[in-house]
């Protein structure tokens, strides 16, 4: 495969996988927490939180990217504060991961929230009568039962993170080997004469990844829900 792909193309594929992996991994716990809040709790500002979570889905990605840039850019207060701790986002692969995480976040929350809402609260009641405190009920009943949703959400989020373009290119630009993810690479190849064949290869890889992610998530959640049917 490395013969078929040039070094730049290969780097873009690997970088995309790395970015998507870390984006999914870091946003997952937060997505579970927020999905749980939205599904189970009533609180002031619930609709606002719901709105903010879904905002990246609706906003033009370039706006999200710009907002990230003015929040985490090197010269901003947050950016320079984080830089003192050795954390830099702007024009780094970690920035691409942050942008991807934010863009994939609504998809994660949505899938997980649906799976929480599908859990029969009567099972959680039953666990409580058996002596499980709320935390134990969550760990032993709610969490395992929402696993299909978590996995489906993670796979979908991973695929979204791999394909993120607008926010990423706005926030961290398009530096080969640094921040040039798969979609940015495709875009770059299409800008130069004779780049079509490289672009086509990456397009095929994108389709394969997206398709496999969808099939995998479908297969996993179906397998799980079959097991959980009572």
């Amino acid at each position: 495969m490395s013969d078929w792909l040039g070094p730049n193309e290969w780097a873009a594929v690997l970088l995309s996988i790395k970015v998507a992996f870390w984006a999914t991994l870091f946003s997952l716990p937060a997505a579970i927490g927020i999905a749980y809040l939205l599904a189970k709790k009533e609180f002031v500002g619930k609709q606002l939180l719901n709105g903010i979570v879904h905002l990246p889905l609706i906003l033009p990605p370039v706006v999200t990217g710009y907002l990230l840039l003015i929040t985490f850019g090197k010269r901003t207060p947050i950016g320079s504060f984080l830089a003192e701790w050795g954390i830099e986002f702007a024009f780094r692969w970690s920035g691409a991961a942050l942008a991807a995480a934010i863009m994939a976040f609504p998809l994660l929350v949505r899938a997980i929230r649906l799976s929480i809402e599908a859990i029969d609260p009567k099972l959680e009641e039953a666990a409580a009568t058996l002596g499980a405190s709320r935390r134990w009920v969550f760990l032993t009943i709610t969490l395992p039962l929402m696993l299909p949703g978590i996995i489906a959400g993670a796979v979908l989020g991973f695929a979204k993170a791999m394909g993120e373009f607008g926010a990423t290119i706005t926030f961290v630009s398009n530096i080969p080997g640094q921040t040039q993810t798969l979609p940015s690479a495709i875009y770059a190849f299409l800008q130069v004469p004779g780049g079509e064949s490289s672009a086509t290869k990456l397009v095929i890889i994108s389709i394969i990844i997206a398709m496999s992610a969808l099939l995998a998530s479908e297969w996993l959640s179906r397998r799980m829900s079959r097991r959980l049917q009572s």
Partner: protein
Amino acid sequence: MTLSVSLQQSMPNFSLDVTFEAPSGITVLFGESGSGKTTTINAIAGLLTHCEGRVTLSNRVLFDSDDNKHLKPYQRNIGYIFQESRLFPHLTVEQNLNYAKRFKKADKSVDFNHIVELLGIKSLMKRAPSSLSGGEKQRVAIGRALLSAPDLILADEPLAALDGARKAELLPYFKKLNRELGIPMLYVTHSPQEVLELADHVIALEQGRIVTQGPAREVMANSKVARTANRAIKSTLTTRLVAHHSDGLSELQAANETLYVPSIDASIGTSVCLELVANDLILSTTKVDGISALNQVNGTVESIENIPSGDVLINVCVAGEIISTHITSRSLKKLNLNVGDACVLIIKSVNICPSNRCKG
């Protein structure tokens, strides 16, 4: 171990006000649906929070609204057997049974093997709950509650979702468990049969109030309770839909007997389960002319039972199924019916309703 309960709750359409003590043994809360049985035991379990009153178990205060004390369900050490077994679908039978283990207080010990043996669920250990039959699920659920080493067991119509044969199979377990393990039980039901089989002490509820309480025979003989009890005696008859008539009736067939019922929304040939309330049936020795009731079906007297209210239940075999009829002892004398006699059941069409509780 005595449970003492005083609960008040007022809602727009319903108010509850009950005060009672449940001694050890099996105490049955008896009443029609909507009488407040489930509300009461949910409050005892701590699953229901919007009520006033006080609940103590031995000397332990579980709930006291005056004191603003409200133990969480997991702090109450009460086992709950639900109507739908509520087994955890992601765990095996064995894991379900062991679920309470990690929360158990160290000084409590239960004999896992003994309970598994009693319930006859040893062979099910590795199975998934989804692969169990209704009766098996419920036995596992009973075991799961017992293995949490509770001070009290609450059972909310644990047999209501099962068919007649499963009910009969499961009922003895409750008695046996109570006898062998000595854990007091508060058992909710609307079935008079279950009351008579199980109860050491009965509390009869109606519209959120206690009508009467005491030993089972005594309570069930109370005319007010008997009325509730008799309404709950129902039988089922499996029939096949054979025709729809233009005057709004559907024609059903059970063996050789034809029945007319208010139009049923189903296609010809489907099997229809009918629910017949013992109180709604008229018994006759011969077919009767000049009567509005459309259905007269032939049967034979299978058995005659005395019921606590002083009346009798005539169990009639119709098309291979047993239909219970509730009549007074005077009627029985007048008809002079004996076991094995032929008789005719007269049923008003409008009193028949389809049900989904037939076996099969």
